[in-house]
């Protein structure tokens, strides 16, 4: 379990490292308010000759006391990919999909595809030796939804 203070501390640390690495993560929202801020990054990617824009957000789940990774994928015309399209792009075809559902973004309160937080807490216990459990968690689960953290991030864990 992480409380909001710890979460925002790890968030700022990751953001500073991202600035050094020119990796593009930004803190958005209101940092002073409990559960008011989140980390965001946009990643363009070519898929079957179409340009897609992945919008990743790392947010805090107050009830579970864990971070959550959520994202939306946009086409160049601004339209959003639906669940089955995301599953195809991410190469999940044929796998159980209910781990990935639309949930309210805790700050924006709009639908985002979200990895359900119910297992995250066990995972966070596993990362308890890390100096930055947020980065440890993100580097482990990010790749399932196409988000790879650079090796340099390991220096803060």
């Amino acid at each position: 379990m992480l409380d909001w203070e710890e979460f925002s501390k790890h968030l700022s640390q990751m953001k500073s490292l991202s600035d050094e690495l020119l990796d593009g993560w930004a803190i958005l929202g209101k940092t002073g308010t409990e559960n008011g801020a989140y980390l965001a990054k946009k990643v363009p990617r070519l898929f079957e000759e179409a340009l897609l824009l992945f919008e990743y957000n790392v947010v805090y789940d107050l009830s579970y006391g864990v971070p959550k990774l959520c994202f939306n994928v946009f086409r160049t015309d601004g339209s959003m990919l639906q669940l089955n399209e995301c599953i195809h792009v991410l190469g999940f075809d044929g796998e159980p999909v209910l781990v990935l559902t639309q949930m309210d973004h805790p700050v924006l309160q709009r639908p985002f595809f979200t990895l359900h937080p119910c297992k995250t807490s066990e995972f966070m216990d596993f990362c308890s030796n890390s100096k930055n459990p947020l980065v440890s968690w993100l580097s482990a689960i990010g790749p399932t939804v196409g988000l790879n953290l650079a090796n340099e991030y390991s220096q803060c864990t």
Partner: protein
Amino acid sequence: MANDREILREIWEGKIPVRFTLYPDEVYELQQPDEFYLMVPRLSYFPLVIDKVKKHFIRYVSNDKNDQEMWLEYDGQPVKWHFPIGLLFDLLVGTGPDLGLPWHIVVHFEKFPETQIFRLNSKDLVEAHFMACLKEADVLKHRGQIVSSMQKKDHNQLWSGLQNDKFDQFWAVNRKLMEVSGEVDHFKYIPFRIYDIEGFYKQKLVKPVSDEGQRKTLNDLLMEMYPKRATSVKVLTHGMFPPLNTPLQWMSEHLSYPDNFLHLCLV
């Protein structure tokens, strides 16, 4: 324990009359469709009760549009149908001498507002959303231990009880989620969301008792959430204003929606 059965019944039986009309610009046939009237349970969700509405209107829209997803609008805004119906009504219409019943909802088949509302085009998706809320509530109340100790058939019974409007079936299982465990006579935290007029909600970890062991009331919750303006606000839920001295633990047991959250609208 949720012992005041009459209250639970009364809450369960709350219904709202709704008048659905098709958005005029989307009518493709020469003849305008009739309006469609439905009495909907406050505790249910729109995607569970609008099959008939879809069937009624779809033959009036252009053929190349009717594979598109239906969505609902009220007063120029898409209806966030992942919220329970009663909450939407309290939030969007509120209360007063002139509610303008039946509630007028406009039906659309074009331009699904995908950035604003969930795609809930199958009952499975609504169920997944409902179960996720229920789990979250149990994490707050019992560290998630009750939901995870339940069997799949209990989960199914909760869901089908809600879907088929079967009070006894639903409460036979929900009762366990409303129990307090072990030494204490209260939940760890109260699962609630409090909505402002713009429709944004806040959550916070609020215990049902104070550090001194005193039972907290709705007033205490408002003081914790809005220290500066707690005295000037009222809270609307299930179409009524609960007295400010109502104990939080009792409220959570009796006035929660089936997703086990209290949904409170600031007025």
